[in-house]
């Protein structure tokens, strides 16, 4: 599925990702109010991955309804990513997404570079559990919680989400990082720091999924650096039941979904696997 934040601010972009073979779409993280995000530069390609600080730009939940409604007849699930600072806002956003026809919601408890939001919510186990259970009490669609690797113990956070009755854990969001221009001594991102993604963070994501999946009884969706079919296999073996792709849309173009799907099938055929379920958690030995 398409990871949140990539080609998903309007219905047209998401339609293109659907046409390119994504199995599900996670929308841009949407908040109560419109938000412009940070000034540029917002995205850099470094030697081994992408560094971004978009700053949660989005048109706000009311205007985003138009985009969601255009995709209501979509053949694949559209999962609404939402961000907020407290339980009441998360609930309001989740209800709107449900009303717009979202197949599920993904709570952004992990954006590493927006004050009061994301990671600031996602490293407080008590707050996170309250938020998840409040949302679960109000909506009927599945609730995913996307976690950050920028915490001391990601397993504790995942368990708090599980206690709040989350339906799945999504791991991982980007890894905090920065890039300084040597000639001017300026941090290049306008926000100074950002989140690192792409191949470079795959081992971090695989480790997180491996640890989480063995300590919770709900599915884990793997994300972080998946660029090829073999990357997906690795996440499945670590315990992921599904995977998301973001940065690889840059590295391999929008057709990355078709490529990964094909590579995954070839790998499974040559290694005698018939179902992804046979791969899930294969590394626990």
């Amino acid at each position: 599925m398409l990871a949140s934040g990539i080609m998903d601010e309007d219905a047209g972009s998401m339609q293109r990702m659907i046409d390119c073979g994504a199995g599900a779409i996670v929308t841009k993280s949407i908040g109560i109010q419109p938000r412009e995000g940070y000034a540029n530069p917002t995205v850099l390609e470094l030697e081994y991955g992408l560094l971004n600080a978009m700053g949660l730009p989005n048109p706000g939940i009311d205007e985003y309804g138009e985009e969601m409604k255009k995709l209501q007849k979509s053949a694949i699930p559209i999962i609404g990513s939402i961000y907020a600072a407290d339980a009441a806002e998360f609930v309001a956003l989740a209800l709107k997404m449900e009303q717009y026809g979202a197949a599920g919601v993904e709570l952004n408890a992990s954006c590493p570079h927006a004050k009061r939001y994301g990671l600031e919510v996602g490293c407080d186990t008590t707050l996170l559990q309250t938020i998840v259970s409040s949302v679960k009490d109000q909506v009927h669609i599945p609730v995913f919680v996307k976690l950050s690797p920028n915490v001391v113990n990601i397993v504790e956070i995942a368990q708090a989400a599980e206690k709040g009755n989350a339906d799945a854990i999504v791991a991982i969001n980007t890894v905090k990082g920065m890039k300084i221009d040597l000639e001017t001594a300026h941090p290049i991102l306008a926000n100074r720091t950002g989140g690192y993604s792409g191949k470079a963070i795959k081992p971090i994501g695989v480790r997180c999924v491996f640890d989480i999946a063995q300590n919770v009884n709900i599915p884990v969706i793997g994300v972080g650096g998946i660029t090829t079919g073999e990357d997906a296999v690795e996440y499945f073996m670590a315990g992921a039941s599904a995977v998301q792709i973001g940065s690889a849309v840059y590295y391999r173009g929008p057709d990355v979904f078709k490529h990964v799907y094909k590579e995954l099938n070839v790998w499974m055929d040559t290694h005698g696997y018939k179902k992804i379920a046979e791969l899930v958690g294969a590394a626990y030995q």
Partner: protein
Amino acid sequence: MNIPTITTLLTSTTETVDVKTITFRYPGAVLPGQFFMIWIPGVDEIPMSVSEMSKKLKGVTFRNIGDATHALYHLSPGSKIGVRGPYGNGFTLTGKHLLFVGGGTGVAMLAPAVEHARKRKLKSTVVIGVKTKNELFFEDRFRRCGATVLVSTDDGSKGHKGFASDLAKEVLTKESIDAVYTCGPEPMMKTLLSACRTIPFQASLDRYMKCSIGICGQCCVGTGLRVCVDGPIFDGKTLQKVEDFGVYRRDAAGRKISF
């Protein structure tokens, strides 16, 4: 790596009261119609189409209109700026007699394309549309390279009184034009597209841009067409299917703003 390269501002030339052209050292090949991301450290980074190009030097032309262009407008030669690119696809010049239609500062990015066409000895007619004659620039530059230049002003202070699209329509009826290239206000370009009918048409689109490398979705039009990677030049066939063309753009938050 896709990060700004620091370079030195070499020249800053006043074109009109609020339009300037800056040049900087930036080696490498660029196609007319492509753009750079220009970084003013501590201020912003914005997309700008190339308006001057030689082997080692490149230049962009802009109106002093926002924070970034305001900062650039007041930078003196010798200042450091960051440049990355070129990005996007560029124009494809086809045919024997080409019509270029530029509205406002849109005319600036057509200049390398016109010069390119003239180098290939292609007959080139340029229609420049501005509000009033004081906003006119690059007229001499087009004449120098051997293009026919026609001017329209909204207030009639010079040349044809009215819109550039009306003047361009006249050219289309009188002359045998093989292809039309345009950059300017989108409603103008949309009018031009419908006047072109079967004549090949290419337009340069301007959208709020963030990542510039095709992933953030900010600049997308139609069914996920990324102005930064799939554009900024789109042909008429594609634009006919883009519902936002000439109708709305999206601001930094992704809210739709009508033209």
